């Protein structure tokens, strides 16, 4: 009886460990639209994006507030919010997708797993399907997820005024980094 109980209990724990939801409210999203002719870096960081990963299905989701992007230059940040992404009209951006090769990631074993992430990204009220290269790093049971993707600003109806058109890249590089914790619902 004791053995049966141990097997059932052990299996349940193992199942939960492999098929659990992980999250963070401190995902970092780096935005870089620096072009070859930019006089300085056109980049910003958002340090308060949320991310949820279901390790069982590979479903991954990000959500961020556009006003949360911090630029070093105040004028650059004002232009980003007011003229380009119109943060007052479109305050949030999100990504909903899946880790394509989730079955290859052994969440219970330390290692760095190279993956492809595919899903829909919504910026400036426009939704596009994107695919990104990513990494899932497992270290001492902790999960870190990283991804790099490039988005064409015109795909999201973000127009750059002619006066600064050559100073801002037409394609923005977005880098995501997040350390995830197990999600325990109260």
């Amino acid at each position, binding site marked *: 009886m004791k053995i049966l109980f141990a097997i059932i209990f052990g299996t349940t724990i193992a199942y939960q460990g492999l098929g659990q*939801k992980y*999250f963070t*409210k*401190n995902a*970092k999203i780096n935005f870089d639209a620096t072009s070859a002719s930019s006089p300085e870096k056109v980049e910003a960081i958002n*340090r*308060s994006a*949320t991310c*949820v990963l279901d390790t069982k299905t590979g479903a991954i989701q990000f*959500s*961020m*507030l556009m*006003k*949360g992007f*911090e630029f*070093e*230059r*105040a*004028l650059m*940040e004002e232009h980003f919010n007011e003229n380009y992404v119109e943060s*007052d009209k479109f*305050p*949030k951006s999100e990504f909903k997708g899946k880790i394509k090769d989730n079955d290859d990631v052994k969440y219970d074993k330390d290692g760095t797993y190279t993956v492809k992430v595919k899903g829909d990204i919504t910026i400036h009220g426009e939704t596009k399907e994107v695919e990104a290269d990513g990494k899932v790093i497992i270290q001492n049971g902790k999960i870190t997820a990283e991804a790099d993707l490039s988005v064409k600003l015109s795909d999201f109806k973000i127009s750059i005024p002619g006066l600064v058109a050559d100073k801002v890249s037409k394609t923005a590089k977005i880098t995501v980094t997040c350390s995830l914790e197990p*999600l325990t*619902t*109260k």
Partner: protein
Amino acid sequence: MKRKKVIIYIIITVFILVGIAALYIYKEYTRTHTDTALLKPDYSLEATSLVKAFETDEQASNKKFWDKVIRVEGVVKDVIKDEKGFFTLALGDTSSMSSVRCSIDSVHSKEAANVQKGSLIAIKGICSGFNADELLGSDVILVRSVVDRKK
């Protein structure tokens, strides 16, 4: 002779005006953000009240608080330090998943490093909006935040 003098005056005036314009453009271009510690808050309230206001009516609260300097008081639920030394402080009801999450201005990291979980503090920051999630709870986000004073 008189005509020559007028031309010289015009040239000098144009040079001065161009100089002033160039200085203005340079100053505006290189302008950095004003330290939040020096800004007067537009609104001052309890962290739990701010979360409740957004939960009750997100649209109206966005209109009222978005991009404004907010001073919130509340219990520190969490102190998060990332690998680069940036701090985020979460304020609010400890029994709830929802919080006011304050991303601390790196210039003021030292003050944040001394904050203890469970203590009562006041924080000033710029409201960047509301992030609601069924699973994760609802958070009001403040950026460029500074610890205002301990209660």
